[in-house]
């Protein structure tokens, strides 16, 4: 369950980071300077957040308090929101 919540958060963060990069050029330049391309940095951030949060959540006692049946709607909701968020952003940006 820890990694499922980590995936939901990472997917939402991924869209938020795409918006932030497009809205704030210095962030895009900073991410480009880190690895040579903003997209490469973006992917690495997503990977670190997913596996990092997943490991942290796995060992957190509070994760057991979440109803497991709520994880699926949370994950589906995050994917739908993140996908629409990206699509609509690039339609209007």
């Amino acid at each position, binding site marked *: 369950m820890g*990694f*499922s919540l980590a*995936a939901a958060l*990472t*997917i939402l963060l*991924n*869209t938020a980071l*795409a918006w932030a990069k497009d809205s704030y050029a210095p962030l895009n330049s900073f991410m480009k300077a880190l690895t*040579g*391309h903003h*997209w*490469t940095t*973006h*992917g690495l951030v*997503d990977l670190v957040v*997913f596996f990092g949060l*997943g490991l942290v959540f796995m060992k957190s006692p509070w994760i057991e308090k979440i109803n*497991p*049946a709520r*994880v*699926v709607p949370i*994950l*589906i909701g995050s*994917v739908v929101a*993140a*996908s629409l968020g*990206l*699509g609509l952003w*690039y*339609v209007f*940006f």
Partner: protein
Amino acid sequence: MNITASDVILLAHASCGVLGCVAATWVFVEVLNASPRNAARIRRAALFAALSMAAAWVLGGYWYVHYYSPEKAMILKGPWPFAHNLFMETKEHLFFATAILAFLLPIACREELYANAVARKLVLSVSAMVVITGLALEGAGAVIDHGVKVALLRGPGKGN
């Protein structure tokens, strides 16, 4: 015949993406019939889906960083600039969501799915989302490719 490294990498990227979708479909169907007998097969298929998406990420990322710029310039000057502005921009970021879902798949499949209805529902949902978003990305790739084609056939100076 003139096949460049760019051609091979791009087609391998798309092929790995399709393989990832096929493997995720395989996981979905197996989980509908989850039992102790197919538990190991489900885990192998889930791992294959994750590895295929990882390969699609590395290959697509390498191609995007090293070869895409001239095609992007061509698309933007052609009659289908939205092939980059909408489809590539969305694809290059939505891909991360598909890949993360694919990486989640083998982790979620570590549960005893035949005995755990919630875990089964989770794996069915994740595998379905890998397939749906993966196929959407394949479609976006086709639009981007067509954006280059129409730019070459009908772009500035082509008289159409």
